[in-house]
């Protein structure tokens, strides 16, 4: 693969209730494997994906937090979280795993500008 398009993946959905969070993570990891640069933005209910220590066995699903923890091994280290969403949900960045960078609306517009492709889940 020659063209190095930069991909931004926007995650707006809570984990487990729908398959979006997992689907998104699988795409991100595949971008990592194929060395396509990828950044992840968590917004709205998507910020809940960053709460750690999941235990999804009781609902017959695989833990996403374990996979999230593996992102750096795939060179996926550009993680952003919408600060407005955190505020709405009553969360602090210190509550979150993966140490994402908090961004405001202008920074989100800038993220969209700087990436060649934007995927939403």
């Amino acid at each position: 693969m020659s063209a190095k398009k930069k991909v931004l993946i926007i995650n707006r959905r809570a984990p487990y209730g729908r398959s979006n969070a997992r689907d998104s993570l699988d795409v991100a990891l595949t971008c990592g494997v194929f060395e396509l640069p990828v950044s992840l933005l968590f917004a709205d209910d998507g910020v809940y994906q960053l709460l750690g220590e999941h235990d999804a066995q009781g609902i017959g699903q695989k833990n996403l937090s374990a996979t999230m923890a593996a992102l750096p091994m795939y060179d996926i280290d550009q993680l952003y979280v919408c600060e407005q969403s955190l505020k709405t949900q009553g969360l602090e960045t210190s509550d979150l795993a993966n140490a994402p960078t908090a961004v405001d609306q202008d920074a989100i517009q800038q993220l969209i500008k700087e990436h060649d492709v934007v995927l939403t889940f």
Partner: protein
Amino acid sequence: MALHTLNRAPADQSCVTRCLNALADNDALLLIEDGVYAALPGHQALFAALPDSVSLYVLQPDLQARGISEKVRDVFTPIDDAGFVQLACDQDKVVSWF
């Protein structure tokens, strides 16, 4: 008396508000699936206007999956699947909000 279940996370304000406004005296609310996030302290204000007679429950396996068992407010009683069935029996009907 009705049991209301809510499976949408707080960002689906339209669904959450609709559910909360539908709760009448002596009804029960059970948060399930992504609905359990509403039991976090950050969403306390949503529940401020509810009658005291409304009882609040949250489905334990869903809390556990999401890693928030220790974080939810204690006005919500955690129950298991058997408790969900029991609530459905105790109330006259079940209304699902999704």
